[in-house]
């Protein structure tokens, strides 16, 4: 079976979630408009791992009875182990800009582009033991040397209460690991068909490169079967377009 790019990404995210060296992911929350992270989480569940998933976008069967406030209260207590964040800009110190470019607050008459806004990132990034950064677009406009504005900082000075930071950054081209001590990303694997030169050209920040660079592990037939079957079943109501495009499945009328 040939894996689609989205399936390679979902499986790469699932392997990061299950990384035995990382803080255990007992309760994972996934924000809105995140079909690939959602697929990764469902895959982890369907592989038999007893993880609690809180998918915020679900209209019916939403896990909270006090909306996103309950999510933030849980995270404030340290009861969300893993969250996913992205950004319009991400820099080499894992700073995230979800706000915009140009003069504050982005996209003003003086120029730049306004992104939607910071959402809960400024809180979740510091309160969650693990964050996996995910952004499909891997280009110099997204992966920049320094973000124009910091919605959420990758690193904090000593004394600032913080439970964790980025574990990794997964893009459409590769997986980077984040080393908080060194304050930089290291290339962890290249997706099939990608080269170091290509990734360097598409990345605005500098990153460390290991002696040998593995290829991102391909999904196994069993993983693909789970994604296209039970994972797709779970996602059909929320992400009908995604399921049609990636899994060739249509929601029942």
């Amino acid at each position, binding site marked *: 079976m040939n894996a689609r790019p989205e399936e390679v990404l979902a499986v790469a995210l699932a392997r990061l979630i299950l990384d035995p060296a990382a803080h255990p992911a007992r309760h994972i929350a996934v924000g809105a408009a995140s079909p690939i992270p959602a697929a990764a989480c469902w895959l982890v569940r369907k592989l038999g791992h007893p993880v609690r998933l809180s998918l915020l976008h679900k209209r019916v069967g939403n896990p909270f009875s006090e909306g996103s406030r309950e999510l933030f209260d849980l995270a404030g207590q340290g009861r969300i182990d893993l969250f996913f964040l992205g950004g319009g800009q991400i820099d080499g110190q894992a700073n995230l800009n979800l706000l915009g470019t140009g003069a504050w607050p982005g996209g003003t008459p003086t120029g730049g582009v306004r992104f939607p806004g910071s959402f809960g990132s400024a*809180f979740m990034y510091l309160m969650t033991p693990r964050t996996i950064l995910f952004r499909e677009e891997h280009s110099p406009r997204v992966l920049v040397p320094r973000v124009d504005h910091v919605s959420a900082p990758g690193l904090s000075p000593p004394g600032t209460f913080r439970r964790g930071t980025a574990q990794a950054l997964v893009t459409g081209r590769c997986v980077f690991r984040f080393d908080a001590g060194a304050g930089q990303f290291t290339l962890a694997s290249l997706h099939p068909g990608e080269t170091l030169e290509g990734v360097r050209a598409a990345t605005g920040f500098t990153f460390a490169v290991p002696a040998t660079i593995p290829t991102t592990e391909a999904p196994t037939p069993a993983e693909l079967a789970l994604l296209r079957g039970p994972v797709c079943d779970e996602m059909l109501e929320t992400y009908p377009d995604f399921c049609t495009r990636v899994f060739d499945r249509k929601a029942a009328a």
Partner: protein
Amino acid sequence: METPDTLAALVPDGALLALPPDNSLPSVALVHALIRRGARGLRLLGVPVSGFASDLLIGAGCVAEVETSAVSLGEAGFAPRFTAALKEGRITVRDATCPAIHTMLQAAEKGVPFLPLRGVLGSDIVAHRPDWKIIDNPFASGGDPILLLPALSPDVAAIHGVMADEAGNIWVGRRRELATLAHAARMVLATVERMVPGDMLEDERLASGVISATYVSAIAVAARGTHPIALLDEYGADAAHVAEYARLARSESGFAEYLARFVLARPAVAA
């Protein structure tokens, strides 16, 4: 009998108007009525983010300022009228982050002047919020900075419940974060799908989803009052309508066409 338009008459120009985001029961019906009334200078509060209803008000020229954690049409992309108004310098945006907005409302609900919140330190948001303060945690032995957020009481909260009863309660199901908004707001204007007899607070199964009449100033029936946004398990989002809006609202003239077709021409819903 109240209608969305009689409710809209209760909202003064310049009011701080709190709106829940898409899928969290914003009253789109009341937003339509505010546009028909020609409301001006509104200050919007996204609780904790802003969506379709806010973009409509901004596009219609009703808004001077937006305080929010993000503005988006979800799957349909960026909010086009918000983006255009910001680019043209017609609105001021005060950026926040979601839990900060919840916390400011919780402070107002408790009647205390401020509450602390963890996290957020190191975000540029803090530097652009002179009304937010960082102190050293007085319960620690020093060296533990923490953010303090002021209480925030919206002048008006515009929410859409599934039903209202004879006692003046409204029912919002599991969206109980709306109770905090209702407790914090000076006035709650609610539209609902339907009226039901009796008092829902007498029904143990419904009571936990009720916002008590104590907090609700006026209620109007507006069937499909969050359309094209989903309402709990009552109806789903009309994604085709939102996509059509996103397409039209890319231009001023397209937005005017949208208003003419779906807002200005739409008769007030009879009760």
